[in-house]
């Protein structure tokens, strides 16, 4: 039981990652793929932050009288990763807008059709 409680966070994070991953590789809509990618990444952030948590610890802002803090390093890494994530999203969506202008669709199948009928 302890084992399950101790790993519940990780397993849900993995489940979320896999829903995101599945959306990316199974869906043909270009916007939805980007959303899947975002879910995938946010769930990886959950995995990292779960690793940084210390039971009974406080947020890592040094205050008088507090002894136990959660691990600040994964927080820093994830702050960077969030920024990287939004940068990727912005670029991906800009590409989607251009693809729509060039092809008139944002469905992968229809784009393939157009490229092959050329």
């Amino acid at each position: 039981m302890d084992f399950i409680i101790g790993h519940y966070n990780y397993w849900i994070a993995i489940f979320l990652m896999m829903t995101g991953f599945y959306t990316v590789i199974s869906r043909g809509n270009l916007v939805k793929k980007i959303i899947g990618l975002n879910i995938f990444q946010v769930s990886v952030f959950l995995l990292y932050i779960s690793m940084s948590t210390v039971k009974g610890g406080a947020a890592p802002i040094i205050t008088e009288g507090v002894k136990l803090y959660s691990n600040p390093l994964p927080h820093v890494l994830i702050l960077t990763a969030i920024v990287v994530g939004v940068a990727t999203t912005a670029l991906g969506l800009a590409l989607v807008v251009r693809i729509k202008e060039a092809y008139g669709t944002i469905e992968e199948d229809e784009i393939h059709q157009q490229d092959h009928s050329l």
Partner: protein
Amino acid sequence: MQGHLSLLLVIVPLIAAPVAAILPRGRWSWALALMVAAICAILAGVQLWAVVHDGVISYELGGWAPPWGIEYRIDAVNAMVAMIVAGIAAITLPYALLSAEKEIPEHQLPLFYSAFLLCFAGLLGITQTGDIFNLFVFLEISSLSSYALISLGQKRQALTSAYQYLIMGTLGATFFLIGVGLIYSQTGTLNMMDLALRLPEVSGLKTVHTGFAFIMIGFALKLALFPLHLWLPNAYTYAPTVITVFLAATATKVALYVILRVLFSVFPLDFVSATPTGDLFLLSGMAGVISASIYAIYQVDVKRLLAYSSVAQIGYMALGIGFASSLGVTATIIHLFNHALMKGALFMAVGAIIYRIGSCHMDNIQGLGRQMPWTFGAIVIGGLSLIGVPGTAGFISKWYLVLAAMEQQAWIVVAVILIGSLLAVVYIGKIIEVLYFRAATETHLAVKEAPMLLLAPTWVLVIANIYFGLNTELTVGIAQRAVQVLGVTPG
């Protein structure tokens, strides 16, 4: 002092990129980029010299000692890769002036060169760093800028290729991030040297195994290792020519470097040899060499043909890793260097044809070899090097690879290498046949040789192909040195 030089190698292009973005003219940004690339090539040369003579350079960023701060750690392996990246950039940029002006609208050129510098800085940042998370950050700098650069190609497929690469690349980077997280959870550190010290104690844990697998898959995606190569042919075909030249010669090399570093320097030897990693690399390498070479034969677009050939060449490098022997990894590192030279030369020569007639489709380039003798000559010599004809750089890589295979008595691999070379004869022969032995269409009789500014950089690489085919002291010497510091064999 040497530490500062290694730092400047990354910082100079990083500072130049925002400046290039706000310059008013494309040519000014180009001049800035060229200057930066030249400075970096010199710095990388000095760094390589210093590393070979005085040993490892370590630099503490922010003045914080590792593992608390980020460390730059340069030995013979990354010094060599940095030299390839900076050298290729310095050769590509003179070529870029005319080629990019033809393919990119003028008002976008300052941003284009800014993105180029960012990509360049990102690749250098990956090679220099000794911190595995810092590597991720610079990986993303180089990836994001290369997605943008690829999307600037002239056909609309450039957009979809860039999108496809963005999805695959981000999945790869996220896999890498998962792997790093899992490893961190068992070691508490991100510094590669520190990881190497701490991993032997925990190498039996399932978490470490999974983390290792995710890091490998992540970078196999970035490397376009067969069968994770699907993004590469499209990206190389539709990107602007200069970008294809630059990425083909550098980006996959940097990804390969990371794999070598993680495999041999970070993880303990007995850990890696207990996993099926070596066999997987061998399998993927063999399948990649054969299938991508066959695909290449059936291509009608020369750029795409060469892109498939790149997948095959990555297969050769994977074979060397698969042997996990000194000789095998030596062959991989030699080929990493030589392949940058030959693919750089070939894509540049093809770019010269595109510059003149706007296409490199087999139907459009018939007989052009006689109109453009210097370009044609570059394709022939680059092609011979790709096949591995004695006297060219390509021969040296294949020779060491065959030696490594024979040392392990892996006769199947020897056969695969030979078949791969024969297939290369076919696809290179096909290009030569179309270019030289077919009659030119009337519209093409007026086509002139490419301008000097395109030919000169191409021929610098062509001559390098011959030089490093005859004088192997430098490449083999550094590669052997690199294998020593990587720690491929115990002791």
